[in-house]
């Protein structure tokens, strides 16, 4: 039996029944990394020694606690972490030359939570530099390949996390989503990804890209694992003022395999000309599945995607231009050796340390916040943001869930869009409005296209309605059993 083929809830049962040890599981994943990492390139750092040591400690704990392991106990289950989440003692590079050798002096709150569960960390996962991008091609560290076709991108920015989960190099992973960075790579790699409601998960220790949009979330093999990992990371954090104090929920209890009471809205504007026909067709099939399962499905109108995309790139770049100011070569990170004044120290450190896309967004963001342009761009974008929120609110008076594509296309070729930023930005057209509206959405596979590439479906919920979208996704997953029918082929 290959342990890496199993989901976490399957592994957890085996651990509980003492059929396997954490050490065996962790070792199996490390072996898989050794076997596949060369082809896929999902990791920035593999922490083999630490992971095995932590697995041994977890086994000791399991042996000492006898039979009292509850259903929610995740002791000994390994995990992969996106490389923009701070890990004490392990490099946190954000896949940037700027932070190539940076080791954080503290753990992100979500990392603390993972460590509190005694979950061995397998390593840090590749991403677009500072989470800016939709293909992971903006990584300054390495190229990540899509396990379904190695010539294609895994999506981004959490491309390393999604590819690692799809390749079974990690049982699950943490990603971050500012405009689709969890959902789009999950979609392109045929795995499950959830962007929680803004404020459900602490951002403390998540290296900030756009503070009002960033959210940490799970990337998993199936919906049950997704609910389990959300259980670990959700909750108020006094270190993050924007995190909400919500009652503790066991999200796995929401997985009822029943959508008979569910009302699904299908916003027609998300199925426009820019969306690939094969993607649309597969989603129309998914709609039929939901109808079969007893859900009410209606077409509706939600004309926000285009405005949301423009708004997104203004707000995200504005916040990024300020958030990335701290990378100045003074206290940590890359410092140029070529300077004779303070200004040169700043300019050359940042010129050398940042990649093109990061620079592009800093320039855009600086521009939209400049005096004389602030009202026309940033202030207006904030107004549109309120408008987008209202439009979603209207829909959630009628529907429990909105169903849309995640990505306009399946995974594209490496290099295909890299030189065309606007094309690349359009990859986010279906996902950014969810961040703009601060609401949750899940991406799950609903089939493959004619090339065998996975197609994702996005289920969007109202604020803090994670239970609703998790159940909707779970019920669909139980019906079509994607993981049993399709596997990555590592096509070259």
């Amino acid at each position, binding site marked *: 039996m290959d342990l890496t083929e199993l989901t976490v809830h399957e592994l957890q049962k085996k651990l509980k029944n003492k059929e396997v040890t954490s050490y065996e599981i962790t070792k199996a994943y490390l072996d898989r990394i050794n076997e596949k990492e060369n082809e896929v390139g999902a990791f920035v750092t593999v922490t083999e020694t630490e992971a095995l040591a932590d697995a041994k400690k977890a086994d000791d704990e399991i042996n000492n606690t006898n039979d009292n392991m509850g259903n929610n106990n995740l002791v000994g289950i390994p995990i992969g972490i996106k490389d*923009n*989440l*701070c890990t004490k003692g392990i490099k*946190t590079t*954000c896949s940037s030359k700027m*932070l190539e050798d*940076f080791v*954080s*002096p*503290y753990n*992100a709150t979500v990392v603390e939570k993972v460590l509190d569960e005694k979950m061995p960390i397998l390593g840090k996962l590749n991403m677009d530099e500072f989470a800016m991008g939709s293909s992971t091609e903006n990584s300054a560290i390495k190229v990540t390949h899509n396990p379904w076709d190695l010539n294609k991108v895994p999506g981004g920015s959490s491309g390393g996390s999604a590819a690692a989960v799809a390749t079974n190099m990690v049982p699950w992973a943490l990603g971050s989503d500012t405009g689709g960075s969890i959902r789009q790579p999950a979609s392109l790699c045929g795995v499950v990804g959830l962007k929680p409601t803004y404020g459900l998960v602490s*951002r*403390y*220790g*998540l*290296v*900030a890209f*756009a*503070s*009002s949009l960033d959210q940490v979330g799970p990337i998993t093999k199936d919906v049950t694992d997704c609910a389990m990992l959300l259980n670990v990371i959700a909750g108020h954090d*006094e*270190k*993050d*003022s*924007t995190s909400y104090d919500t009652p503790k929920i066991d999200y796995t209890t929401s997985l009822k395999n029943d959508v008979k009471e569910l009302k699904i809205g299908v916003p027609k504007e998300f199925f426009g000309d820019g969306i690939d026909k094969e993607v649309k067709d597969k989603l129309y099939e998914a709609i039929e599945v939901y109808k079969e399962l007893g859900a009410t499905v209606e077409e509706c109108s939600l004309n926000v995607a285009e405005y949301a995309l423009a708004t997104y790139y203004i707000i995200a770049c*504005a*916040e990024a*231009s*300020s958030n990335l*100011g*701290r*990378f*100045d070569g*003074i*206290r*940590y990170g890359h410092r140029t050796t070529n300077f004779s004044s*303070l200004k040169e120290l*700043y300019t050359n450190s940042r010129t050398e340390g940042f990649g093109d896309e990061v620079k592009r967004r800093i320039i855009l963001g*600086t521009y939209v*916040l*400049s*005096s004389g342009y*602030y009202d026309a761009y*940033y202030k207006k974008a904030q107004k549109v943001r309120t408008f987008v929120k209202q439009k979603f609110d209207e829909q959630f008076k009628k529907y429990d869930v909105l169903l849309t594509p995640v990505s306009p296309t399946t995974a594209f070729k490496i290099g295909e869009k890299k030189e065309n930023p606007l094309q690349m930005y359009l990859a986010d057209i279906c996902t950014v409005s969810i961040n703009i509206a601060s609401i949750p959405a899940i991406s799950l596979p609903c089939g493959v296209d004619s090339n065998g590439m996975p197609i994702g479906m996005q289920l969007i919920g109202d604020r803090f309605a994670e239970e609703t979208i998790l159940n909707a996704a779970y019920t669909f997953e139980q019906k079509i059993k994607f993981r049993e029918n399709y596997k990555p082929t590592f096509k070259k």
Partner: protein
Amino acid sequence: MAKEDYELVVGLEVHAELSTKTKIFCSCPTDFGAEPNTHICPVCTAMPGALPVLNEKVVEYAVKAGLATNCSISKDSKNDRKNYFYPDTPKAYQISQFDKPLCENGYIEIEDDFGNPKKIRILRIHIEDDAGKLNHNEFSGGSLVDLNRAGVPLIEIVSEPDIRSSLEADRYLKKLKSILQYIDVSDCKMQEGSLRADVNVSVHKKGEPFGTRCEMKNMNSFKSIQRAIDYEKDRQIYEVEHGNVITQETLRWDDMDGRTYQMRDKEDAQDYRYFPEPDLVAIRLSNEYIEKIRAELPEMPESRKARYMAELGLSEKDANSLTSSKTFSGLFEKAGEICKNYKAVCNWLNSDISRILNEKELEPEQIPFTAEHLASLVKLIDDGTISSSIGKKVLDELFENPRDPKTIVEEKGWVQISDANAIKDVVLKILEANPQSVADFKAGKDRALGFLVGQAMKETKGKANPKMLNELFLEELKK
């Protein structure tokens, strides 16, 4: 035109460090004077991923300051980022308040140059974080960054341009300082940088619109602020008189040279790209919260002054100087209560103690002795143990090496001679040694008595009871 034909317009931006125990966005201590970079954490050093959490005490202190300066308190306020690069600013932005400050539209009452009451309006008070410090290394030529101060809470108090003279500016600052000390939100130590003021100065011909203003920085004492304003006023009048145009610029005051130098002109004016701080939530205050703070405010200088005049019979001048500083007023009340001679305590504070502070260039809060010491000094004089001239020597001693005045007097052997026989011996000795003075006195020259008393004092090293000396001399001379 003459200088008198011009009017000076001054506005002040005062930064006061709040005396909260911890920093504004993290729980590092705010104590001054620690080893460099020992009061730091991921938040105040701006490590990647660290987030600010607003210290509620900072809001409370700022609201106190707003209420004490007659501001209206905003129930819906927020923080904004002010973006700029400098090594003492680790985030590359300061978290300040832009368009929704916590406090607005207040005023402070001062006296103008002619002693008439005048209100100086306060435009706004907002909260923000202080920057770190750069320690320039003279030997290596490099600079070292100390981030202990980064994140210490500040309030910025911005006045309207209502000030018309350097004296008014000085009075405004002293009043503001005393208010902030009274309500215990800042220790206002200029020498430690916990109170700093930037000054905006312009001049215009009387009856004409305001001139272009220049901003002055780097004044380290109230005195240098006054000097800088006077200098800048003269400079601007000179420029205008010579047909030159005043341009908006930022100037650095050089206290040694007694003049200003240009720091940056308008072209260099930074675009701070303010925008709402997305890492923090709006600051919403309830009426109850604001009223609770109002109810807890201590007695302000104005009302103390009135009380001193009405209940203790002090003159307005005396009451004014006592209440100008919380330390003075505190010493006055406590020492007065112990020794029950408020008038005497008032005199000590307003004359000799003030004089010594001036000579030593000390602030009232640097007074080394306690109210108990001061009360004891007054009592020693009142009960005749020492004379008031010895009292002055005791005071000097209190500044040098503070301890109980009783001990000082005993150690130094300064106890007053009130033994009638001992004094009579001295009187007789002096009379014998000065026959001419005796003759003068008998010839009607009353002044001779003063001379004789003085000689007796000299003989006893000031310890003789002056009242008894007088009486005994008269007794003997009239024999």
